[in-house]
């Protein structure tokens, strides 16, 4: 999929009277979990493309069950802000939002279910941008880049997504080597020093939001912390300000999750545009054949 021209007339006419709803995971423990999604809502509101823009979450409020009370538009575009297709995008979100397919007629409105942000080709660019930001002055051809996913049998698709992104980045030939690693399955991120050839190592978590995993779990696995600083730590983002870390005879650069990367709002819009273009194409085909 190429990036969409966000000034294209036909989808924009549809969007002028439509609501855009971005669905995130959220958290009852981590106050930073929803912020990437809410920041995207505010940015897209400012662009004035949609009649309404809102967000809802699985684990915090506003919940998915309330979102239809929060928007009034007759057309609603739902974009999941998730790193991959999987249990949430295929089961939980359709169930909670009462969706029955790509387009659902619901209480007098049409609800269009778009692909998740993690499916967009630009995710590769965002990961690369994060890597370059955290270590701007090292030679990438002499650097090992690790993309970190969660990885468990409960979350197979996130492991597949991390592996896919690592392969896409490797194809670009910019970094000396690119590996996908995981918190809970091999190749383990905890073995980063033995997995990598180069002395410079950049680690980018493949998550939408920073939270327990990126603030605590991964730093412990990397050896930045000996033990978890605790969920109540008021200095949650401090780990990202300590780069570079001299560990295990290598120089380690650790990046935040990509959900706050500029350009994420464009990915959300692209997913909505993609769905709107399909709708308009199907309508045109039905009425001109």
């Amino acid at each position, binding site marked *: 999929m190429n990036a969409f021209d966000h000034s294209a007339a036909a989808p924009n006419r549809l969007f002028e009277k439509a609501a855009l709803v971005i669905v995130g995971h*959220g*958290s*009852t*423990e*981590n*106050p930073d979990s929803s912020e990437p999604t*809410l920041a995207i*809502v*505010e940015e897209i*509101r400012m662009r004035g493309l949609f009649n*309404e823009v*809102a967000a809802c979450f*699985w*684990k*915090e*409020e*506003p*919940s998915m*069950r*309330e*979102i239809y*009370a*929060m*928007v*009034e538009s007759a057309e609603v575009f739902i974009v999941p802000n998730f790193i991959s297709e999987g*249990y949430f995008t295929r*089961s*939980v979100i359709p*169930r909670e939002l009462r969706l029955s397919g790509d387009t659902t007629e619901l209480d007098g409105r049409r609800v269009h279910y778009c692909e998740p942000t993690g499916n967009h080709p630009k995710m590769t660019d965002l990961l690369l941008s994060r890597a370059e930001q955290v270590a701007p002055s090292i030679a990438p051809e002499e650097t090992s880049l690790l993309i970190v996913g969660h990885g468990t049998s409960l979350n197979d698709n996130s492991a597949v997504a991390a592996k896919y992104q690592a392969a896409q980045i490797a194809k670009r030939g910019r970094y000396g080597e690119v590996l996908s690693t995981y918190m809970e399955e091999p190749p383990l991120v905890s073995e980063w020093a033995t997995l990598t050839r180069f002395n410079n190592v950049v680690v980018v978590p493949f998550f939408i939001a920073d939270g327990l995993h990126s603030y605590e779990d991964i730093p412990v696995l990397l050896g930045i912390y000996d033990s978890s600083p605790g969920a109540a730590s*008021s200095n949650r983002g401090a780990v990202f300000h300590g780069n570079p870390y001299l560990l295990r005879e290598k120089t380690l650069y650790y990046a935040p999750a990509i959900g706050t990367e500029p350009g994420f709002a464009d990915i959300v819009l692209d997913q909505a545009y993609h769905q709107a273009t399909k709708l308009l194409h199907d309508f045109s085909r039905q009425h001109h054949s």
Partner: protein
Amino acid sequence: MTSLDSIILNLCRKGGFTLCEVSVIFKTDHFLIRHKETENGIGSNRHFVTPGEARFVARFDASGAYRPLKGAPTLPRDWELHLKTASEVRQALDYIYPGAIGLFAQLQCRKALPVSFSETASRQTGMYRIVGTISDDLADETIADVCHPSKCLRTILWETRPGIRPKHLPPEKFAIPQNQIRPEALEVPFLCLEPCNLLIAACRKAIKRAERSAVKSPQPAA
């Protein structure tokens, strides 16, 4: 202007309204949202002018603790929101009390459709599937704990099972506040049309605790 924005405008024309812990009034050329206990702006150190900033108001309580449940009676008091339009007021209120105006509108149009605890519990999957097996007593106990007015200000419209209201909660938990036509304010309820994921998560924890207790204290064989 949407119909939800019109509701806000009309309430403000009548002198303003309260919604849980906040008050909303119109002052000459802007709308003012603040904690209703903040008299005349005393104690309002943080002044905001965009609706998006309301999410920072609602995220933490006064001690800095995270507030994932937006209906909790722990909204800090040290802030004011100065907004230009009814639409901005609705966007801000949706960060502080998500969906409150929309749910209020559904109630007024008799379109509010509560979903029972048993229906919500039985549709859960994955790690929450077990909640569908919760006993009525344990469900009532957990609901009484999580949904108590001291922990959540929402007014419950749902039943535990069809025809059966949650037990052990005070009557005011189910009562729609009477509109108080005072010169200053009407009172808009923050409705709860179905159990939230926080309650579902609490039920799962309660079941797991009960299972662990049963393992530690097995019943003697007959």
